[in-house]
């Protein structure tokens, strides 16, 4: 599989060939079909893709958060600092979740327990993982709320989630996720449920905290604007697979996969020099009950060739850390659309 992970053997987190299925009444859904990526210490990896492409399932299966059954991890591994974490929550006698990996979710309004005070909820991982007394944990919770820039933290810690606004709740969620100083923070669409001005504040906060604590961030999003602002590395996911992966500049300025291009063309911009007509990606993602034999994007791809329908493309490396999974990049393909980036010698 991908040699990106193999090349950087000292990565903080290495995920290899992860595949997840769900049993449903309609049959087996192959939500994630062989995903590999790695996360470097202190860096931000963004996983981008539209709804249902498997980006949330990827991280939730790593965290043991998908219900099993009906969910099932059919293959792959995820190694945190060299230790396998897939299918287990405790490594070396230590709980991974909440202490090594923190996680925040899309909708802060429903992601907090309505009958527990904010402070108690932030204190909880400290009590569980660090063995803090309630009082010590609660005081630390107040400090964490201050760190998350919540005014009057001591008073706020004694309030309940319904007394907070959405943006404040997401700050509290972040405070909770970083309470035990995890080495990775997974942010699963952290700003999707918030309005735009609050989004910006939350992203700023995440960046500040990342600088302060040196943690790595895995950012799940469908918003390319968020990616451009936050990410060091980007993985573009489609139909349960990563179709393009690279440094943020590679993916944005040297987009090599037709899907990445499609996403970019469908993204509004407020920079007049980049003003263009928004072009939606026609059609809908493939049915993952019976995934296509060939490339998942084939049916919607403007550059589709005959081979695309029949056989899975391989990763083609365009740079050391930049690959695209597309037949157009195959040496024998003569079709090289100008809009896409190709290796110099391939032209």
């Amino acid at each position, binding site marked *: 599989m991908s040699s990106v992970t193999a090349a950087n053997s000292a990565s903080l987190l290495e995920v290899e060939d992860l595949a997840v299925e769900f049993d449903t009444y309609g049959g087996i859904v192959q939500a994630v079909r062989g995903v590999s990526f790695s996360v470097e210490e202190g860096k931000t990896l963004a996983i981008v893709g539209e709804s249902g492409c498997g980006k949330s399932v990827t991280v939730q299966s790593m965290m043991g958060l998908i219900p099993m059954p009906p969910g099932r991890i059919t293959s792959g591994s995820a190694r945190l600092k060299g230790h396998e974490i897939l299918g287990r*929550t405790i490594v070396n006698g230590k*709980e*991974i979740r909440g202490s090594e990996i923190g*996680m925040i979710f899309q*909708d802060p309004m429903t*992601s907090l327990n309505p009958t527990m005070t904010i402070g108690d909820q932030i204190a909880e991982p400290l009590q569980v*993982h660090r063995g803090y007394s309630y009082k010590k944990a609660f005081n630390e919770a107040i400090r964490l709320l201050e760190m998350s820039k919540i005014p009057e933290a001591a008073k706020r810690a004694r309030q*309940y989630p*319904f007394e907070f606004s959405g943006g404040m709740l997401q700050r509290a969620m972040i405070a*909770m996720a970083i309470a035990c100083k995890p080495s990775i923070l997974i942010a699963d669409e952290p700003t999707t449920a918030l309005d735009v001005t609050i989004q910006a504040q939350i992203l700023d906060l995440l960046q500040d905290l990342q600088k302060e604590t040196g943690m790595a961030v895995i950012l799940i999003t469908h918003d390319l604007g968020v990616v451009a602002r936050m990410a060091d590395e980007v993985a573009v996911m489609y139909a349960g697979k990563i179709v393009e992966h690279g440094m943020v500049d590679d993916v944005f300025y040297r987009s090599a996969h037709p899907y990445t291009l499609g996403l970019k063309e469908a993204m509004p911009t407020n920079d007049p020099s980049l003003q263009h007509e928004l072009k939606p990606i026609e059609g809908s993602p493939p049915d993952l009950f019976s995934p296509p034999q060939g490339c998942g994007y084939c049916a919607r791809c403007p550059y589709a060739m005959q081979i695309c329908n029949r056989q899975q493309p391989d990763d083609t490396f365009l740079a050391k850390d930049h690959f695209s999974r597309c037949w157009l990049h195959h040496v024998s393909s003569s079709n090289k659309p100008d809009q896409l980036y190709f290796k110099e010698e391939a032209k």
Partner: protein
Amino acid sequence: MWIFILKRLVQGIFTVWFIATATFFAMHNVPGDPLLNDRATTDVIRANLEAKYGLDKPVMTQYGIYLGNLLQGDLGISFTQENREVNDIIRDHFPVSAILGILAVLFAAAGGVLWGALTAIYRNRWPDYVIMFLVILGISVPSFVVAAISQLFLVNVNGLIGTTVLPVAGWGTVLHMLVPAMVLGLGTMAYLTRLMRSSMLEIISSDFVRTAKAKGVPPARIFAKHQLRNAILPVITVLGPSIAAITTGGFVVELVFAIPGLGRYFVQAVQQLDYTVIMGTTVFYGAFLVFMVIVVDVLYGFIDPRVRME
């Protein structure tokens, strides 16, 4: 909070007044009267008795007198049990019904929450199937059948062991109370189990439970701190009416187990058209129900902070 309680109390007083009025006129519209039995043998005796009990006055006047007495806490004298005040009947027999009822409710609530949570956690596995089968049984089998079967069971157990482990009927000690309380609470427990199951299923798949898992909180703590308290809210909502229903609806069980509770007098009074006892017990039960609902609403506020603030 105090304003909230006060408001509910005022509302409650109106409710009780409405119950009293409705019962009063419904009762007077039922054909016959309390003197129809062998006591009023001649017209003269009947006229004297009517004068004594005030039944010769127009209905509206009787109503006025009744309300006046009610306000002073005087529920009147029984028409059929000579010289026995309704207040005394309630005072003597309600505590028995109340103790039985409270035990039954405790049993029903504890059982309902426990079984409901269990079925939700073991959803679609054998503990779920077994318990839900028993729940359907508990809901559909009437309490007098369960009461009779449990008595039969007790007789056999006592016979087998050779000494009275648990008394089959009667009242007096804690041992007397156990089996009737369980029988009385069974239907409510079955109902609460179903309620708790559906509520718990919703909570189990909720976002904040996922958050707790992502924090690495151990399952037992998730259950106690995150799931139970939130899932229990709908159960508490119906607990007030349940307490009242159990306490007031216990007369079948009281009869089968020969327990001297208030239920028997309530039913007897209706059969004999004993006006004052019907009114007294109905109004008392009505007030009790209203009070329990208020208590539960206040309790709800302690468990759910969102309600407390409003």
